[in-house]
């Protein structure tokens, strides 16, 4: 038997996906493993294809935000936000200042709820269900704020070409501030809980490293790239809405491991709270919608920073009331590809966590299975158990 045959013989394939209740875009990962070690990863996308770009030209400009909102339930403000920016770019108008501030507030609220959601699921992955329950409990405060402002817990329908649909009234502002106080306190608590815990640290540090060069080569965006030391943030680099009018910082860590990604997300939530406070303080008076009479023929681009990275929308108009072409690019598309390098060389117990760390597929909880000669060897439950066992081992080591 030649060397090569031997090495392929000891390889196993661990499929993850394609469906999981929590994935934004059902993806199909094939982990190729040698014993405990992951040597390669294959990715297969496209299970959640609903034809947004096809439906969009059938709808009027006023209806398109409702469609793109339904691309993703978690980023259900980022997509319509980018769409209306593209439409406004095409029409050459600027929304009123108050609308800009309201959009910023909604966008940052969304970032907080998305990051808390991720944190909870990451906690579940390493076997700390308490973190999951806590994070989701405090996420409820944000959802309540959403329900108060927009009337719905998710799918807020706030953006419309030329402004926003609903105002933030004077009575709502203290309520939002109160919720932000709670969220800030709890985020600090979670940050300390995660960073001070030696087990958590051991579990996250040095796992799934994505170097700066790789992050650039794979064109990653959002927290995935910022955790690898690439200080790229559309909110700062291409100012839109009120992002250049209020003070805030871009969070960057150079390590590139899962711990860095966690830290970026945790501290970004604090920054988001700061942005929201500043926006509410500076909220100018005035109308919330600009009138758009006609969209001239031409094209427009809208970019914004979603919780996971840059969202890009492109609209081409032929002068009618419907877009001629609508192109959408979501951040996870690039971030998922970087998993190929991040997961390579790690152990299986860490693979789930590494795949989860870029946040597209944070919790492929039950459809993972390993096959050996056509027979199932591991189920996803077992893989999760492997991950939990590692945490248990570490707990013993650190005497907890």
């Amino acid at each position, binding site marked *: 038997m030649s060397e090569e045959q031997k090495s392929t013989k000891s390889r196993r394939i661990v499929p993850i996906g*394609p*469906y*999981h*209740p*929590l*994935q*934004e875009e*059902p993806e199909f990962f094939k982990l190729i493993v040698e014993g405990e070690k992951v040597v390669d990863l294959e990715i297969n996308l*496209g*299970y*959640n*294809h*609903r*034809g947004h770009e*096809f*439906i969009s030209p*059938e709808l009027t400009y006023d209806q398109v935000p*409702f*469609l793109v909102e*339904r*691309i*993703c*339930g*978690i980023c*259900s403000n980022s997509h319509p936000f980018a769409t209306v920016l593209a439409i406004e770019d095409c029409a050459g108008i600027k929304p009123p200042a108050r609308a800009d501030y309201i959009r910023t507030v909604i966008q940052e609220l969304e970032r907080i709820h998305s990051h808390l*959601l991720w944190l*909870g699921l990451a906690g579940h992955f390493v076997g700390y269900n308490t973190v*999951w*329950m806590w994070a*989701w*409990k405090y996420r*409820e405060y944000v959802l309540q704020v959403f329900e108060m402002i927009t009337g719905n*817990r*998710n*799918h807020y329908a706030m953006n419309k070409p030329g402004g926003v649909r609903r105002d933030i009234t004077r009575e709502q502002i203290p309520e939002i501030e109160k919720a932000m106080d709670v969220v800030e306190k709890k985020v600090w608590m979670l940050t300390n809980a995660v960073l001070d815990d030696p087990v958590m640290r051991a579990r996250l540090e040095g796992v799934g490293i994505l170097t700066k060069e790789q992050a650039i080569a794979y064109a990653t965006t959002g927290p995935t790239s910022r955790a690898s030391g690439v200080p790229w943030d559309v909110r700062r680099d291409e100012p839109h809405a009120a992002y250049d009018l209020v003070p805030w910082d871009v969070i960057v860590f150079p390590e590139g491991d899962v711990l860095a990604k966690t830290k970026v997300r945790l501290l970004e939530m604090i920054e988001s709270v700061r942005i929201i406070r500043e926006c509410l303080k500076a909220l100018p008076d005035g109308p919330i919608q600009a009138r758009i009479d006609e969209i001239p023929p031409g094209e427009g681009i809208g970019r914004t920073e979603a919780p996971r990275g840059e969202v890009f929308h492109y609209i081409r108009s032929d002068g009618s009331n419907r877009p001629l072409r609508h192109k959408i690019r979501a951040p996870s598309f690039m971030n998922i590809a970087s998993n190929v390098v991040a997961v390579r060389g790690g152990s299986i117990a860490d693979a789930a966590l590494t795949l989860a760390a870029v946040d597209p597929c944070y919790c492929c*909880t*039950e459809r993972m299975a390993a096959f050996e000669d056509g027979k199932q060897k591991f189920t*996803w*439950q077992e893989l999760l158990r492997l991950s939990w066992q590692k945490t248990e081992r570490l707990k013993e080591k650190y005497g907890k």
Partner: protein
Amino acid sequence: MSKLGLWGLKKSPWVYHVAAASCNNCDIEILELLTPRYDIERFGMVLVGSPRHADALLVTGVLNRKSLPRVMEVYEQTSKPCLVVCIGTCTCNTNIFRNSYNAVGPYDKYLPVDVYIPGCPPKPEAMITGIVKALSKL
């Protein structure tokens, strides 16, 4: 079904969650049911990891060409009787994706649906009410 089995099913329904091409929001709201604010485990409802253990199937998202065979497969694996609970407008009438080339139509064309919970996404309270109503049908 034996009386004991029916009693067990009513007191502690195990649910399995299957997402076709959903926008993820209905799914997140289902998970929300597990977390402290709603905590459906109080009522004996448990999300299980395998369709074979399920008494009720919670389906979300539009059916598309790729997901239809998978969803049917999952339904066939469940032990009968199994309630099918359609969560979200996507499952009831394909929502805004009606004209998509990839959507194959509402679930009741393919599966015996027991409850429809419309809403985009439905509130967690609505989901609890829907599942309880479905159980009272038995």
